[in-house]
Each structure stands twice: as C-alpha cells, then as structure tokens.
C-alpha cells in the first residue's frame, strides 16, 4: 500500500493562507469549515544582557496543516460507524457522508483539528487529499497554489527520503500519538512539540 502524505516547510511559509483559501474555493467550503488551517505560533521574552540592558527574542512562524492522513488515525478509531475510514489504496483518510451520523466524536479525538463539522448537512467533512486531482496526476490544490512552494505532497516514503522525518514542531502534538503522514521542515525559530515558550496567536482563525 502506498501512503500519501504532506510536506510543510515552515522556513518558507509566510502565513499568506493562499493554501487555505484555494482549498476552500476548490471544495466549496462554507465559512467556518477549513480543511486546511494555518497556525501562527509565536512567543518571546525580554532577555537581560550582562550590562543590565534588555533585548527581546520575539519569534513567530506558521504551520499549514490539513489532515495528516495518519498511520494510526485517532479519528477512524473513534468513529462509531466506520464512516471515517482509511483507504486501502493510498492511505487517505476519508468520511463517507452517507454513513456518518454526525456525532462529532472524531473531532474530539483528532489532535490536529482535521475533522470539520458541516453544521448545515449535519455530517463531518475533512481534507480528502484532493484524490480526484491526484488521480489525474496533479497535486492537491493547496500544494499547487502555494506561492512560496512551501508545501509538497506524495508518497510519504518519497517525501521522507527527500526532506527527512521531522514531524514534531510546535504547535503540533507529539507525533507518536497518531503517526501522521507528515514531514516538516523547521524554520530557524521552530520550537519542538510540547513547547511552552509560545502559543497559537491566531486562535480565532483556526
């Protein structure tokens, strides 16, 4: 089985959110439903120099996250109907909207905020890896729309061979929880998962 996954370069990402918007446009997502979300992680402090003066070490960087199509998804394990399932073919995690009962338990379980509830249709929705575009040999719309070329998509083994295996960058959770199909590149400010020196700055956007 191939496992498809994402690559996110936090050194290149400027937080422009073109990926988030192109995804909303391609998939006709309503206000409040974001299959891809850009988290602004920031913090900093005043550091006292030896001569008694102060300097600041303020930092901020962006992590663009959709669904990581995890190897051990918390959502599919939680789902009481099997509507949330992992495809044999390419490891993409999808919702069968005709089976979903809208209990929102997957939303409670996924630490990445990937399941997004459609309040009108009363069922769960989420990133489907643009499987229709992938079938045509294209990449997902978020990847192709990124003006900084900070995102990539493909078989996770290829991505890991090309970019490494980092996936534990704040504010993302410890990757051992769900084993996400995700490779991250750290920016020079990047903090490890579990970091307490910063916080998500744009909580109302994500």
């Amino acid at each position, binding site marked *: 089985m191939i496992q498809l996954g994402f690559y996110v370069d936090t050194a290149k990402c400027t937080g422009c959110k073109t990926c988030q918007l192109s995804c909303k446009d391609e998939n006709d997502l309503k206000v409040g439903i974001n299959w891809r979300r850009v988290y602004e992680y920031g913090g900093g402090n005043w550091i006292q120099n030896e001569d008694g003066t102060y300097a600041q070490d303020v930092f901020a960087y962006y992590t663009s996250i959709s669904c990581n199509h995890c190897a051990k998804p918390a959502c599919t394990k939680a*789902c*009481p*109907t099997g509507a949330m399932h992992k495809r044999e073919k390419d490891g993409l995690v999808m919702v069968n909207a005709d*089976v979903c*009962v*809208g*209990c*929102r338990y997957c939303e409670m*379980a996924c630490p990445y905020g990937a399941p997004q509830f459609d309040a009108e249709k009363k069922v769960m929705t989420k990133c489907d890896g643009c499987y229709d575009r992938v079938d045509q040999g294209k990449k997902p719309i978020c990847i192709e729309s990124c003006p900084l070329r900070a995102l990539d998509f493909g078989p996770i083994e290829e991505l890991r061979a090309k970019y490494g295996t980092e996936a534990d960058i704040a504010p993302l959770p410890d990757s051992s929880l769900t084993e996400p199909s995700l490779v991250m590149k750290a920016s020079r400010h990047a903090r490890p998962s*579990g970091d307490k020196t910063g916080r998500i700055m744009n909580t109302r956007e994500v």
Partner: protein
Amino acid sequence: MQQLSLVIFTVLAQGTVGLFLVLATLLMFNQDAKRKQLLTRMMGVVLVMLGIAGGAALAHLGQPLRAFNVIFGLEHLSALSVEIMTTSLFGGAVFTYGAMAHFGILEKLQKLVLTGAMGLGILLLLAIANVYTLTTVPAWNSGWTIFQFVMTAFVIGLPAAALLLRSQSAKLGTFQKNTDRALATLGFVTLGLVLVGYSLYLFWLGQVELPVNPLGLMDYHGSLILARLGLLFAGLGVWVIAATRGSNSGVGLAAVSTVLVLTAELCGRIFFYDLHMFASGM
C-alpha cells in the same frame, strides 16, 4: 454549550444505573411477593430515566435517523459504539426483567436476567468512561474520569432509590425504614469519598501538561466547581443526617436531596466537557 445533550445523557444514564443497582440488590435478597411487585414497578422509573437519557444522546447526533449505523463501529471496537450498544443492552435487560416479573414469566430465570442486567449496568458505567479516556485529550485521559463517572452512579442512585422507597413507605413498612438507614450509611461513605476525591481531582488537574490553565478556562468555572461541591454536600448531607437521626420516611427531603445532587453532577459534567483540549492547543 454544544455538548449539553451529552452532559444530560451521561449524568442521567449513570444515575439510572446507580438507582437500578440499588433496586436490583433489594430484589435479589427479597422473599416477599408483594414487595417484589412494588420494587418491580419502580423499575418503570429506571426505564423512563434511561429513555430520557437515550433521547438526549440521540439529540446530540447530527443524523439521528442513521443511529443504527453505530453497529458498524463494533467491527473496530469504537468506544462510542460499545457504549451505545451497552446502553441498549442494559435497557433491554431491565425491560425484560420488568416484563418477566410483572407477568410472572419463568419465575426461576428472573434472577438470572436481573444479575445479567446488573452486570450490564456496571459495564455501562465503564463503557461511558472509556469513551472519554482519549489518549489525545490529557485532561480526560486518566483514572479520574472513571472515578467521577462511577461515583455519579452512587451520588444520584442512592438518594433517588431512597426517594422511591420512601414514596411507598406505607406499604413497605419496616423494610423501607431499614433500607433507608442502610442507604444513608452508604450515602455517608459516598459523600466522604467524593468530597475527598473531587478535591484531589482538582489538584491533579492543576498539574496536567496543558496549553492553558484548566482551572481558569471560563469565568464561570470557579462558581461551577464551588456550586458542585456545595450542592453535593447539601444534597447528600440533608438526607444522610436526617436519616441517621431517625427521619426515614419524609418524601420531600429525599426529593430535595435528589434534585440537589442531580444539579451538582450536571455542574460537574459541564466543567468536565469544557476541559476538552489537546496538549498542543490546536
């Protein structure tokens, strides 16, 4: 609050299991036919409460008409599927026992069905806790969730059972008085356990690794925690103290007590659901 229906479902279901366990225990050791009839009739209250709880749970679903789809989740042992199935089986077993006892069907098998229903009731308490001990949700993923969910059964079940028995005190005679005293003693032990337990739980909560202070999430949380402890103390206290001093048949007092503890547990559960967050803060 989005999970209000779940607050109602979990608290009512747990309280119902507690009430049922008390009534079932009394029935297990009962030899009197008249008493059995009265106690069996009280099972109707268990079924009604469970029905309200089930209705609340259904109201939480976006697509309640597809509720039967939860059977598919048993294939991968989804905690939610197991919980829903256990609730249905428990309700079914209580109903079966009630019908058998009421119509006098298969006298010898009745206690077996009753034992099965008691087992399912205990499983239901654990199954509900199992839904919320998610590895990705640090404030929920602990033995404290199980402790709280099991204690709710005692906290509500004991005064509710005392209330039902007191309502029939004229017909039940000394049996009711003695049972009330026994229940009040258990209530006293429960009160001690929860007051110590819930305080320790708050201490534990304060040191969980979370992106924000779990005790300062909402402005109303301080009052909610205090209200819960106060109502619990008042609710169990008035009944236990009066009962141990010989007042064992006042329906009003037991009713006030039941309402107070029910409110206390609803406050506690609202606080519990508010604590849902991931270690990452995402």
